[in-house]
C-alpha cells in the first residue's frame, strides 16, 4: 500500500508499481466523456485548458446529486475505455494520472510508458463508498454539462489499484 498526495511531485508516479494498492489524498479533478472531447478540442485549437495539468490527475466520474448533509452524491468511477480515444493526447500534454474502471487501449498503455503516466483502477459501482471519502467539491468548468461537468474534489484515503504504471506495465498481463 502506498500513499499518493495530489498534486504530485515529479517522480511520484514513477514510484507506483503495477498491482499495488494506492491511497490518494488531495486534489483530484473529475471529467468524463464530454469533458475529454472538449479538452482535446481546446488543445487542438491551441487554447489553455481550464486547469493546469501539472501534478494533477483526472477521475472518470459523474456524481449523483448530493443529498442533504453530504457534499456530493454517489461518486464511483465510470468505464475508462470510453476515454481511450482522448487520453493519449491529454497524457502527452501533461495530464498523466488517470483513475477509472475497466481495461484500457494499447494506445493508453503506450502513452503511459512514453510520458511516465499511470492509470489506477477505482472500485466499480462503489458510489456510496467513494462519496464518503470526498471532503469538498468545486465546479471548475462546463457547468452546463450537469453531472458531466469538470469538477475539482478534495479526497481523503481514496483507494485504488495501479493498473498501468509509468513503465507501461499492465496489471494481469505476463
Amino acid at each position, binding site marked *: 500500500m502506498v500513499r499518493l498526495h495530489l498534486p504530485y511531485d515529479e517522480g511520484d508516479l514513477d514510484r507506483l508499481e503495477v498491482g499495488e494498492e494506492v491511497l490518494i489524498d488531495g486534489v483530484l479533478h473529475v471529467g468524463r466523456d464530454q469533458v475529454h472531447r472538449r479538452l482535446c478540442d481546446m488543445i487542438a485549437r491551441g487554447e489553455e485548458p481550464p486547469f493546469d495539468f501539472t501534478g494533477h490527475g483526472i477521475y472518470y466520474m459523474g456524481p449523483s446529486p448530493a443529498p442533504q448533509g453530504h457534499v456530493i452524491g454517489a461518486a464511483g468511477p465510470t468505464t475508462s475505455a470510453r476515454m481511450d480515444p482522448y487520453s493519449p493526447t491529454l497524457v502527452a500534454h501533461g495530464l498523466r494520472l488517470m483513475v477509472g474502471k475497466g481495461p484500457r487501449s494499447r494506445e493508453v498503455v503506450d502513452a503511459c510508458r512514453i510520458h511516465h503516466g499511470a492509470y489506477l483502477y477505482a*472500485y466499480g459501482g462503489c458510489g456510496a463508498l467513494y462519496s464518503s471519502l470526498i471532503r469538498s467539491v468545486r465546479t471548475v468548468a462546463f457547468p452546463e454539462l450537469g453531472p458531466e461537468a469538470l469538477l475539482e474534489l478534495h479526497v481523503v484515503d481514496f483507494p485504488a489499484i495501479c493498473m498501468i504504471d509509468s513503465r507501461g506495465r499492465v496489471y494481469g498481463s505476463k
Partner: protein
Amino acid sequence: MTLQQRIEEALCSAVRTLPAQCEALIRKTCDEERSTAGHSVLSAIVRNIDMASSSTLPLCQDCGMFLCFVEVGRDSRADVGRLEDIIIDACRRAAHRAYYRSSVVAEPVYDRVNTGDNLPPVIHWEVVDGDCIRISFLLKGFGSENCSSVRMIRPTDGEEGVVGAVLDMVRAAGGKPCPPMFLGVGIGGTMDKAAVLSKKALLREAASRHPDERYARLEERLLDEVNRLGIGPGGLGGDHTCLSVCIETYPTHIAGLPVALSVNCWAERKAVIEVIGGEVW
C-alpha cells in the same frame, strides 16, 4: 397507499438496496473469492452495499435508465393510458426524492441535452392471462448496458453456437461492466424479441432455474464457462466473473436463431409492484 406511491417507494428503495437474493450472492462470493485483488473488489462492494443501505446515497452514481415491464392481465380491465401516466409520474418523483443522477439525454446523436429528471423511462407492455397487473423495473446502468448485444447465429448452431456467442460477448465485455455480473440471455423470436427476452431474464430471481431442464442445464453451463474466463471481480482476475445466468426463450423462424445477451453489473437494482385484480388505483 396509491399505486403511484407504491411504485415511487419501490423505486426510492431500489436505488439504495439490492434484492435480498442478489446481496446474499455477493456476500457469499466475497467469502469464497481466492484472488487477492478480486477479494479487495468484493470487500469494497460489500462495504458500499452497507453504506448505501444505511444512508440516503444511491449504491452507484449511475442510477440507470428506468426500464419498465408491465404485464397486464387480460381480465384486469386496466386503463392502460392512466397506468402509463402513473408509472411515469412515480419515476419522476422517485428520481427527485431518492437523488437519482439525471442520466438521460433527450436526443441520442446531435444535441444530447440532459432531460434533467432521468425521464423518459423505457416501457414494454405485454398482455398476459389472469386479472393481475405486474409492474417490474430494472434500473439499468450503462457501463454494463454498453456490453449488451445481439447475435444472429445459424439455426443449426444449437447449444454450442449459443454458448460460443455468449462467451464471445462476455469476453469482449471483460472488466468493463463491473463484474461480478448478472447475465440475461434471450433466445429465439426476432432480433428485438430476443433483446427484450434477455432483459426479462434479468428480472427473474437471480440464480433461479428455467423450468425446462435443458435450459436449466444450459444456464448452469454458461455460468460455469463464463466464470472459467477468469475475468474476475472488477476485471482484476479471480474465480467470480458472473453471479447468475437466466435464459428466456420464444418460438423463432426456421432460418434463424437470435441470441441476445443483457449484461448487468453487480448492482442489479430491481423493483416489482403487483396489483391484484379489481383493485382500485
